[in-house]
């Protein structure tokens, strides 16, 4: 069974440019998460989807970040415009459903460098 797929794996952009990350969760997983992980830190949740509905986006900086999960399968996270402080690893995870009984499976992440 394929795991969570993310692309690209690495992205280098100049500040003020837009960037987008793509995630394909494990087949059948209804819940999808986007996390941001700064160097030497644990991941921080940006947004959680239940199917195509964003049910927790309280940590998403909505002035420059947006996300979508059309048809409740794969998802895209966008930053426009990017700032130097956005440099981080962006992780996508999925689970069958939300809750402690459902393991979250993480993708390898996209390492973003903003110069």
């Amino acid at each position, binding site marked *: 069974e394929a795991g969570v797929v993310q692309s690209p794996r690495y992205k280098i952009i100049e500040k003020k440019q837009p960037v987008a990350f793509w995630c394909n969760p494990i087949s059948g997983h209804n819940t999808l998460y986007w996390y941001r992980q700064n160097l030497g830190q644990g991941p921080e949740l940006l947004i959680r989807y239940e199917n195509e509905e964003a049910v927790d986006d309280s940590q998403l900086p909505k002035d420059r970040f947006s996300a979508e999960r059309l048809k409740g399968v794969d998802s895209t996270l966008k930053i426009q415009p990017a700032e130097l402080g956005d440099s981080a690893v962006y992780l996508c995870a999925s689970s069958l459903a939300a809750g402690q009984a459902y*393991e979250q499976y993480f993708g390898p992440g996209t390492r973003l460098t903003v110069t």
Partner: protein
Amino acid sequence: TQLLEQSPQFLSIQEGENLTVYCNSSSVFSSLQWYRQEPGEGPVLLVTVVTGGEVKKLKRLTFQFGDARKDSSLHITAAQPGDTGLYLCAGCNAGGTSYGKLTFGQGTILTVHP
């Protein structure tokens, strides 16, 4: 805002030594998870502890959940170079719109030298 404090932040030991990583919070969590992350990869779940006072063993790894469900520890016996990695604890919320939300600690970078 719920916070999880992990200590130590860095740990460098020789093969065969024992070690303990701590995870503390002022908040109560419905469960606590431990993950291991290798460079260039996402975190991988090691264990979930749910009941206060619970102890789980995974080969040379022993995980304990505090009685009040606010703290946890990970103990590794006879560490091996293959144990090298970033260890993360994560508390899970029980209810509300944050149901199932994981709050991660900042991680412990473990290096085991041969």
